[in-house]
Protein backbone atom coordinates (compact mmCIF):
# COMPACT_ATOMS: atom_id res chain seq x y z
CA UNK A 1 0.00 0.00 0.00
CA UNK A 2 2.70 2.47 0.96
CA UNK A 3 4.79 1.67 -2.12
CA UNK A 4 1.83 2.12 -4.40
CA UNK A 5 0.98 5.36 -2.69
CA UNK A 6 4.45 6.78 -3.21
CA UNK A 7 4.46 5.76 -6.86
CA UNK A 8 1.17 7.48 -7.47
CA UNK A 9 2.25 10.62 -5.69
CA UNK A 10 5.31 10.76 -7.90
CA UNK A 11 3.21 10.25 -10.99
CA UNK A 12 0.77 12.95 -10.13
CA UNK A 13 3.24 15.42 -8.75
CA UNK A 14 1.48 15.30 -5.43
CA UNK A 15 -1.40 17.46 -6.60
CA UNK A 16 -4.99 16.83 -7.44
CA UNK A 17 -8.25 17.02 -5.66
CA UNK A 18 -9.32 14.71 -2.87
CA UNK A 19 -11.08 11.55 -3.86
CA UNK A 20 -14.42 11.14 -2.19
CA UNK A 21 -16.55 8.90 -4.28
CA UNK A 22 -16.69 5.61 -6.10
CA UNK A 23 -18.77 4.25 -8.93
CA UNK A 24 -20.16 0.83 -9.51
CA UNK A 25 -17.36 -1.65 -9.70
CA UNK A 26 -16.40 -4.93 -11.17
CA UNK A 27 -13.68 -7.20 -9.96
CA UNK A 28 -10.89 -6.75 -12.46
CA UNK A 29 -7.72 -7.54 -10.54
CA UNK A 30 -6.96 -9.80 -7.60
CA UNK A 31 -5.94 -6.92 -5.42
CA UNK A 32 -7.61 -3.94 -6.99
CA UNK A 33 -11.07 -3.32 -8.18
CA UNK A 34 -11.50 -1.25 -11.24
CA UNK A 35 -14.34 1.18 -10.96
CA UNK A 36 -15.94 2.68 -13.99
CA UNK A 37 -18.20 5.66 -13.87
CA UNK A 38 -19.92 5.60 -17.22
CA UNK A 39 -22.28 8.44 -16.47
CA UNK A 40 -19.55 10.82 -15.22
CA UNK A 41 -21.60 11.61 -12.11
CA UNK A 42 -18.78 10.46 -9.90
CA UNK A 43 -16.15 12.08 -12.08
CA UNK A 44 -17.73 15.46 -11.67
CA UNK A 45 -18.32 14.96 -7.97
CA UNK A 46 -14.79 13.75 -7.34
CA UNK A 47 -12.90 16.18 -9.48
CA UNK A 48 -15.23 19.11 -9.24
CA UNK A 49 -15.63 19.74 -12.95
CA UNK A 50 -18.37 18.96 -15.39
CA UNK A 51 -17.75 16.35 -18.05
CA UNK A 52 -16.57 17.84 -21.33
CA UNK A 53 -17.97 15.35 -23.78
CA UNK A 54 -18.71 11.76 -24.55
CA UNK A 55 -15.04 10.83 -24.63
CA UNK A 56 -14.54 12.09 -21.11
CA UNK A 57 -17.19 10.06 -19.47
CA UNK A 58 -15.06 7.18 -18.35
CA UNK A 59 -12.93 7.40 -15.27
CA UNK A 60 -11.06 4.57 -13.67
CA UNK A 61 -10.73 4.26 -9.94
CA UNK A 62 -8.35 1.85 -8.33
CA UNK A 63 -9.34 0.80 -4.88
CA UNK A 64 -7.47 -1.28 -2.42
CA UNK A 65 -9.85 -3.93 -1.17
CA UNK A 66 -7.37 -5.65 1.08
CA UNK A 67 -7.11 -3.09 3.81
CA UNK A 68 -10.70 -2.50 4.77
CA UNK A 69 -12.62 -5.28 3.16
CA UNK A 70 -16.13 -4.38 2.17
CA UNK A 71 -15.52 -0.65 2.22
CA UNK A 72 -12.44 -0.13 0.12
CA UNK A 73 -10.07 2.78 0.27
CA UNK A 74 -9.71 4.64 -2.95
CA UNK A 75 -6.03 4.88 -3.67
CA UNK A 76 -6.03 6.16 -7.18
CA UNK A 77 -8.37 7.93 -9.52
CA UNK A 78 -7.48 8.78 -13.05
CA UNK A 79 -9.36 10.57 -15.73
CA UNK A 80 -9.22 9.13 -19.22
CA UNK A 81 -9.10 12.22 -21.35
CA UNK A 82 -7.74 12.23 -24.86
CA UNK A 83 -7.15 15.97 -24.90
CA UNK A 84 -5.78 16.36 -21.43
CA UNK A 85 -3.24 13.59 -20.96
CA UNK A 86 -2.27 14.53 -17.44
CA UNK A 87 -4.25 12.44 -15.05
CA UNK A 88 -5.66 13.84 -11.88
CA UNK A 89 -4.39 11.53 -9.21
CA UNK A 90 -4.60 11.83 -5.51
CA UNK A 91 -3.82 9.42 -2.74
CA UNK A 92 -6.72 9.29 -0.40
CA UNK A 93 -6.42 7.83 3.04
CA UNK A 94 -10.14 7.86 3.59
CA UNK A 95 -11.51 6.20 6.70
CA UNK A 96 -13.54 3.07 6.08
CA UNK A 97 -17.19 3.74 5.59
CA UNK A 98 -16.77 7.33 4.48
CA UNK A 99 -16.24 6.94 0.77
CA UNK A 100 -19.65 5.97 -0.45
CA UNK A 101 -20.95 8.09 -3.30
CA UNK A 102 -23.39 9.55 -0.87
CA UNK A 103 -20.56 11.44 0.74
CA UNK A 104 -19.30 13.05 -2.43
CA UNK A 105 -19.45 16.77 -1.94
CA UNK A 106 -21.70 17.68 -4.84
CA UNK A 107 -24.43 15.40 -3.56
CA UNK A 108 -24.33 15.67 0.18
CA UNK A 109 -22.97 19.08 0.96
CA UNK A 110 -23.32 19.60 4.69
CA UNK A 111 -25.31 16.43 5.21
CA UNK A 112 -24.71 13.72 7.77
CA UNK A 113 -21.93 11.31 6.95
CA UNK A 114 -21.86 7.56 6.88
CA UNK A 115 -20.81 6.16 10.24
CA UNK A 116 -22.09 9.10 12.27
CA UNK A 117 -24.86 8.63 14.79
CA UNK A 118 -28.26 9.60 13.43
CA UNK A 119 -29.82 12.61 15.16
CA UNK A 120 -32.61 11.84 17.55
CA UNK A 121 -36.04 11.76 15.98
CA UNK A 122 -39.28 12.44 17.81
CA UNK A 123 -42.14 13.31 15.51
CA UNK A 124 -45.80 12.55 15.00
CA UNK A 125 -46.96 10.14 12.33
CA UNK A 126 -50.09 10.56 10.20
CA UNK A 127 -52.23 9.21 13.05
CA UNK A 128 -50.70 11.79 15.42
CA UNK A 129 -48.83 9.16 17.41
CA UNK A 130 -45.37 10.06 18.61
CA UNK A 131 -42.69 8.01 16.86
CA UNK A 132 -38.97 7.65 17.48
CA UNK A 133 -36.17 5.99 15.58
CA UNK A 134 -36.24 3.07 17.99
CA UNK A 135 -39.82 2.10 17.42
CA UNK A 136 -39.67 2.75 13.68
CA UNK A 137 -36.59 0.66 13.18
CA UNK A 138 -36.64 -2.98 12.09
CA UNK A 139 -34.24 -5.67 13.32
CA UNK A 140 -31.46 -4.36 11.07
CA UNK A 141 -32.48 -0.75 10.78
CA UNK A 142 -34.61 1.83 9.07
CA UNK A 143 -34.79 3.32 5.59
CA UNK A 144 -35.92 6.90 6.10
CA UNK A 145 -37.15 8.81 3.07
CA UNK A 146 -37.27 12.59 3.26
CA UNK A 147 -39.75 14.04 0.79
CA UNK A 148 -40.87 17.50 -0.12
CA UNK A 149 -44.46 17.12 0.99
CA UNK A 150 -47.28 19.50 -0.01
CA UNK A 151 -48.58 16.85 -2.42
Amino acid at each position, binding site marked *: MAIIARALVAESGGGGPAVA*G*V*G*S*YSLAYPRFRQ*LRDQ*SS*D*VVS*SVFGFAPLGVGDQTATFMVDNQTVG*ATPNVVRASRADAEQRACHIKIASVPAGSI*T*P*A*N*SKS*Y*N*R*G*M*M*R*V*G*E*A*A*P*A*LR*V*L*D*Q*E*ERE*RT*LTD*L*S*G*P*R*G*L*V*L*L*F*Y*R*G*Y*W
Partner: protein
Amino acid sequence: MEFDRLAEAFEAQGYRLAALSVDVPERSRAVRARIGLRMPLLCDVMREAVKAWDLYNRRERGGIAVPATVVIGADGAIRYCVREGMARRLRASELLAWLGQPGGAPEPPRARGFWPGWRAWWRALQR
Protein backbone atom coordinates in the same frame (compact mmCIF):
# COMPACT_ATOMS: atom_id res chain seq x y z
CA MET B 1 -44.13 4.53 -5.10
CA GLU B 2 -41.33 2.06 -5.67
CA PHE B 3 -40.15 1.98 -2.05
CA ASP B 4 -43.59 1.19 -0.71
CA ARG B 5 -44.11 -1.48 -3.35
CA LEU B 6 -40.88 -3.15 -2.19
CA ALA B 7 -41.62 -2.71 1.51
CA GLU B 8 -41.95 -6.44 2.09
CA ALA B 9 -38.60 -7.07 0.44
CA PHE B 10 -37.02 -4.44 2.70
CA GLU B 11 -38.66 -6.08 5.71
CA ALA B 12 -37.26 -9.42 4.63
CA GLN B 13 -33.83 -7.80 4.80
CA GLY B 14 -34.64 -6.55 8.30
CA TYR B 15 -35.32 -2.92 7.37
CA ARG B 16 -38.50 -0.97 7.84
CA LEU B 17 -39.49 2.04 5.78
CA ALA B 18 -40.71 5.45 6.87
CA ALA B 19 -41.12 8.74 5.06
CA LEU B 20 -40.81 12.17 6.57
CA SER B 21 -42.00 15.59 5.46
CA VAL B 22 -43.07 18.81 7.10
CA ASP B 23 -46.74 18.21 6.27
CA VAL B 24 -49.31 18.23 9.04
CA PRO B 25 -50.78 14.84 10.05
CA GLU B 26 -54.14 15.53 8.37
CA ARG B 27 -52.48 16.10 5.01
CA SER B 28 -50.19 13.09 5.43
CA ARG B 29 -53.17 10.96 6.34
CA ALA B 30 -54.97 12.08 3.20
CA VAL B 31 -51.92 11.48 1.02
CA ARG B 32 -51.39 8.05 2.51
CA ALA B 33 -54.99 7.09 1.86
CA ARG B 34 -55.02 8.56 -1.64
CA ILE B 35 -51.86 6.81 -2.79
CA GLY B 36 -52.43 3.69 -0.72
CA LEU B 37 -49.12 3.83 1.10
CA ARG B 38 -48.37 1.34 3.85
CA MET B 39 -45.29 2.97 5.33
CA PRO B 40 -45.79 5.53 8.11
CA LEU B 41 -45.60 9.17 7.08
CA LEU B 42 -43.82 11.19 9.72
CA CYS B 43 -44.82 14.80 10.19
CA ASP B 44 -42.04 17.16 11.17
CA VAL B 45 -44.30 20.14 11.48
CA MET B 46 -41.85 22.09 13.64
CA ARG B 47 -39.02 21.44 11.11
CA GLU B 48 -36.80 20.21 13.93
CA ALA B 49 -35.82 16.90 12.34
CA VAL B 50 -35.11 18.29 8.88
CA LYS B 51 -32.94 20.99 10.45
CA ALA B 52 -31.12 18.44 12.59
CA TRP B 53 -30.45 16.38 9.49
CA ASP B 54 -29.50 19.50 7.53
CA LEU B 55 -32.21 18.68 5.02
CA TYR B 56 -34.16 21.89 5.35
CA ASN B 57 -35.02 23.88 2.25
CA ARG B 58 -36.01 27.25 3.68
CA ARG B 59 -36.54 28.85 0.27
CA GLU B 60 -39.69 26.96 -0.74
CA ARG B 61 -43.19 27.15 0.70
CA GLY B 62 -42.05 28.48 4.03
CA GLY B 63 -39.54 25.69 4.51
CA ILE B 64 -39.82 22.08 3.36
CA ALA B 65 -37.67 18.95 3.45
CA VAL B 66 -34.96 18.33 0.90
CA PRO B 67 -35.55 14.94 -0.73
CA ALA B 68 -33.10 12.39 0.60
CA THR B 69 -32.76 8.72 1.42
CA VAL B 70 -31.05 7.62 4.61
CA VAL B 71 -30.34 4.14 5.90
CA ILE B 72 -29.93 3.96 9.66
CA GLY B 73 -28.56 0.78 11.17
CA ALA B 74 -30.00 -0.91 14.23
CA ASP B 75 -27.17 0.65 16.25
CA GLY B 76 -28.35 4.13 15.28
CA ALA B 77 -25.44 4.83 12.94
CA ILE B 78 -25.96 6.09 9.43
CA ARG B 79 -25.14 3.39 6.89
CA TYR B 80 -26.01 5.29 3.75
CA CYS B 81 -27.32 8.71 2.92
CA VAL B 82 -27.91 10.55 -0.30
CA ARG B 83 -29.46 13.90 -1.09
CA GLU B 84 -31.76 13.79 -4.07
CA GLY B 85 -33.34 16.14 -6.55
CA MET B 86 -36.56 16.39 -8.48
CA ALA B 87 -35.18 14.36 -11.38
CA ARG B 88 -32.51 12.50 -9.46
CA ARG B 89 -33.94 9.81 -7.24
CA LEU B 90 -32.35 6.75 -5.78
CA ARG B 91 -34.03 3.60 -7.04
CA ALA B 92 -35.44 1.41 -4.30
CA SER B 93 -34.32 -1.71 -6.15
CA GLU B 94 -30.69 -0.51 -6.17
CA LEU B 95 -30.78 0.22 -2.47
CA LEU B 96 -32.41 -3.12 -1.78
CA ALA B 97 -29.76 -4.95 -3.76
CA TRP B 98 -27.05 -3.15 -1.81
CA LEU B 99 -28.63 -3.91 1.57
CA GLY B 100 -28.77 -7.56 0.63
CA GLN B 101 -25.17 -7.66 -0.43
CA PRO B 102 -23.20 -4.80 1.10
CA GLY B 103 -19.98 -3.92 -0.60
CA GLY B 104 -19.91 -1.06 -3.05
CA ALA B 105 -22.61 1.40 -2.10
CA PRO B 106 -25.30 2.28 -4.64
CA GLU B 107 -24.26 4.84 -7.20
CA PRO B 108 -25.47 8.39 -6.70
CA PRO B 109 -28.81 8.80 -8.39
CA ARG B 110 -28.54 10.12 -11.91
CA ALA B 111 -30.61 12.90 -13.30
CA ARG B 112 -33.25 11.51 -15.59
CA GLY B 113 -35.07 13.29 -18.33
CA PHE B 114 -38.54 14.40 -17.33
CA TRP B 115 -41.23 15.93 -19.50
CA PRO B 116 -44.51 16.60 -17.72
CA GLY B 117 -47.66 15.52 -19.47
CA TRP B 118 -50.56 17.82 -20.28
CA ARG B 119 -52.31 16.82 -17.07
CA ALA B 120 -49.30 17.95 -14.99
CA TRP B 121 -49.13 21.24 -16.92
CA TRP B 122 -52.82 21.81 -16.33
CA ARG B 123 -52.48 21.10 -12.61
CA ALA B 124 -49.54 23.46 -12.38
CA LEU B 125 -51.48 26.22 -14.15
CA GLN B 126 -54.45 25.72 -11.85
CA ARG B 127 -52.23 26.16 -8.83
